[in-house]
């Protein structure tokens, strides 16, 4: 059903988020893929709004999507909701594949990114000494090599267009370069990870992401703050 940009009040889509959260951006990219218009509400997590506290009383976290007055929380849950609620919308196609096995594989890669890949990347960034940093870097590269193999010669993890796995890994495309700048070490080089290296640039200029990225200088400053703690 095409609303042509104008939504009746009960069709309004609202997204509560914060500018620095990769989980919020994952949802923004998903909404963009579907061409869904939404009102964005910036939350101050040190001073959470009454709306946030009542819409996500359990976790009190962003992102929260509100559609037809009903909230959806947890970014992975929100992305699947967007794919289903706006099933036939958007030239961006389906976020998850149609085939059940392919869907299971996509969901597995999301878990991989969260549980297997992210911890060593965080360890590398926050390592107190050179030795720990080097060890964590190699551990992270080992997992990035797994991703490299999965990506292979494809444009995106989902194939010709961005899909669930690309959305879940997408923040790395802008976070890793910042981490590299701050630590003075490289983790994704064209030599060791050529496909992933190319994917990062491709993702950042892809239709869902290109006009929807956080302010990178501001992000770098906030990361610098985290690292000296």
């Amino acid at each position, binding site marked *: 059903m095409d609303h042509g940009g104008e939504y009746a009040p009960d069709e309004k889509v609202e997204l509560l988020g914060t500018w620095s959260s990769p989980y919020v951006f994952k949802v923004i990219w998903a909404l963009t893929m579907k061409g869904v218009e939404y009102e964005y509400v910036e939350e101050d997590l040190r001073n959470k709004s009454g709306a946030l506290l009542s819409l996500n009383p359990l976790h009190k976290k962003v992102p929260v999507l509100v559609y037809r007055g009903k909230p959806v929380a947890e970014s992975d*849950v929100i992305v699947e909701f967007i794919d289903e609620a706006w099933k036939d919308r958007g030239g961006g196609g389906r976020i998850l594949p149609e085939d059940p096995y392919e869907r299971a594989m996509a969901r597995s890669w999301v878990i991989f990114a969260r549980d297997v890949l992210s911890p060593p990347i965080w360890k590398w960034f926050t390592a107190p000494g050179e030795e720990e940093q080097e060890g964590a870097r190699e551990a992270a590269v080992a997992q990035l090599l797994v991703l490299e193999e999965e990506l292979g010669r494809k444009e995106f993890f989902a194939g010709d267009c961005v899909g669930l796995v690309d959305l879940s890994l997408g923040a790395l495309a802008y976070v890793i370069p910042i981490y590299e700048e701050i630590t003075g070490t490289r983790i994704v080089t064209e030599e060791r990870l050529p496909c992933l290296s190319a994917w990062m640039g491709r993702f950042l200029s892809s239709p869902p992401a290109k006009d929807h990225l956080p302010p990178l200088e501001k992000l770098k400053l906030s990361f610098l703050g985290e690292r000296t703690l």
Partner: protein
Amino acid sequence: MAGGDDLKLLGAWASPFVTRVKIALALKGLSFEYVEEDLRNKSELLLASNPVQKKVPVLIHNGKPICESHIILQYIDEAFSGTGPSLLPTEPHDRAVARFWATYIDDKSMRGKTEEEKTEGIKKTLGAVETLEGALRDCSKGEGLFFGGDSMGLIDVSLGSLLSWLKATEVMSGAKIFDPIKTPLLAAWIERFSEFDVAKAALPDVDRLVEFSKKMKQAAAAAAAAASEN
């Protein structure tokens, strides 16, 4: 069930995540071959099927492996959508609510290995129980029969698969997790769930779990003592 569907489940009897898959398969009326793994001596098949995490459960459907219990449950629901009841409702927001609670239950599931982790796990669980009472009231539209509304669904299976461990924890720690006064709907739900054939067949025996847990603790303590003597 389509002809030629070969389903194999690699599991471990004590794992609630494996129990979860057993219950889901039974609910859908799907027959499968069960392979009990010795987690201290994992089979070639398990290592080949789940090379990254090397964990159970793994469901192998016509030779293709699927890992992670909540991913397996959704796979079963989607690949066998014409067979048996659906684990998830049809309406997108209702599905999102079901996935939200399933994620929550997974987060709170006691996966701790060390004593501190386990104690933290118990505290988390006790905190979660009152939340789940509220969730049950909302999801079941006040009746409290199933999280899935009229019939068993994803949340019921996710939580129900933990029951033997929760009961074993009550026995070992003396803490009462499900108080019929504080959480009446949940307490009744547990009684009801435990009586279903699919649950009885899949849930491990509580006494056996208590024995198993004691043995694990003894082994861990012995290992820790040996390590500190070096």
